[in-house]
């Protein structure tokens, strides 16, 4: 079974880390990740850019584009995509296509800062 581990933390707090603190955390995380990679168990890993870089597409009819992250608590996180796009407009187009196929709810579109594709086979 594949498990997704979703990372939550206070963004203000993480943003207040010094460069050295941030690097120290990343180094410690890399130790855990490396172990999993050697075992062939690690899938894609992504560190997202801050929520200030996020845009939300409400899958209404017509879809509504809002600045900022998805802030409602009525809905739950059910899945995610990682798509290679030239810019935000292209990413929004993809999200609109997906939304047309599956209306209701919302997509939060967030640029990925750091990405490792991983090696796990499903």
């Amino acid at each position: 079974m594949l498990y997704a581990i979703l990372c939550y933390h206070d963004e203000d707090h993480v943003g207040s880390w010094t460069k050295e603190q941030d690097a120290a955390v990343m180094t410690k995380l890399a130790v855990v990740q490396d172990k999993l990679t050697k075992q062939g168990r690690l899938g894609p890993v992504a560190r997202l850019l801050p929520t200030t870089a996020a845009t939300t597409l409400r899958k209404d009819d017509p879809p509504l584009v809002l600045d900022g992250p998805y802030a409602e608590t009525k809905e739950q996180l059910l899945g995610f995509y990682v798509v290679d796009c030239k810019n935000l407009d292209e990413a929004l187009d993809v999200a609109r296509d997906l939304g047309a196929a599956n209306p209701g709810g919302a997509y939060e579109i967030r640029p990925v800062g750091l990405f490792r594709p991983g090696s796990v086979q499903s």
Partner: protein
Amino acid sequence: MTDTAWIDAALTSARPQAVGALLRYFRNLDTAEEAFQNACLRALKSWPQNGPPRDPAAWLIMVGRNVAIDDIRRTSKQQALPEDEAISDLDDAEEQLAERLDGSHYRDDILRLLFICCHPDLPATQQIALALRIVSGLTVKQIARAFLVSEAAMEQRITRAKARVADADVPFETPGAVERSERLVSVAAMIYLIFNEGYSASGDTAEIRSPLCEEAIRLARLLLRLFQSEPEIMGLTALLLLQHARAAARFDADGAVILLDDQDRSLWNKSLIAEGLALIDKAMRHRRSGPYQVQAAIAALHARAEKPEDTDWTQIDLLYGALEIMQPSPVVTLNRAVAVSKVKGPEAALDMIEPLAQRLSNYFHYFGVRGAFLMQLGRNDEARIAFDRAIALANTSAEAAHIRMHLDRLQRDSQPRGKKAGK
């Protein structure tokens, strides 16, 4: 991360919201700061034992408020009772606290706190020092170091600024839409000033002053999180990120300036660039252009070019043209001329800056740029005169050293062939 490092980061990140809320309760900057300090002291005792609270800012506001009210009550027993209205709006605060923390207030709390620091009576350096002290919570020692002045001088500067702000009438009502957007403009300008303080440092001080750039970026991100749909705040944040991304490549080991074309682009910070590009992309969708967005778009074109020759100078020329209309200034025209020199050649660029001579007669960069154009045209004697003038006007030793490099090259070129000076 150790416990203390974690707590430090938590206190730093909670500070703007907590001090902003305490200021709203007490309507006095010193009381608010003192209340926050007391709350921090208690946090340092309580958090390692009891674990961190779920919402550190709410904890600090609650504790800071209670300690300060106790203090007021204690002194009131010794002295005459305070005026009723001095504490009357505190009574209902407890019940309303949770609700107030919900977000609607704290946005304006933080904006007010930032706005107080941009009081128009305060000179720019005092605005910046005050913001770094009050909003960012940097120590006087840290700020003094970043400004390259003594601690005593900085202490005095901040005290003076606080006194002036205390006399000013700070409106505590929730601002209306127009007022809010006016505050945003002032605050954005102040954040830009903080950044420039760090960015304009010379090579030998860049390292010491770069915390100013990082703090400006943190404040810009904070402001953008509060005002998510403001394209100019997106533009400002993008601009700062894209400029700061080049920090590691801007100076050589001796502290001399390395111009954009000569920088090692592999040293540019890719994650900051990615964030900056994402933000400018977001901002453009609003089709409400502004000076920060245009400047960020220019920085983005540089950031996108993997090699200097890939730079889209035509587009940069157009963007500077747009900026000239929004914010007419001889410095903008001077910058545009550099783009024009790449697109149409040095002759056209020189024609463009000729009319600026009088207004920029004391501006280092004018003579540096003019000298470079003349040198490209082979008018070496005139170039030398311009460079000499630039050196006389240089603000930092790094600027002077950079111009001297041009003069050396002119010197070498004018020597007879075969006698070329070594490297």
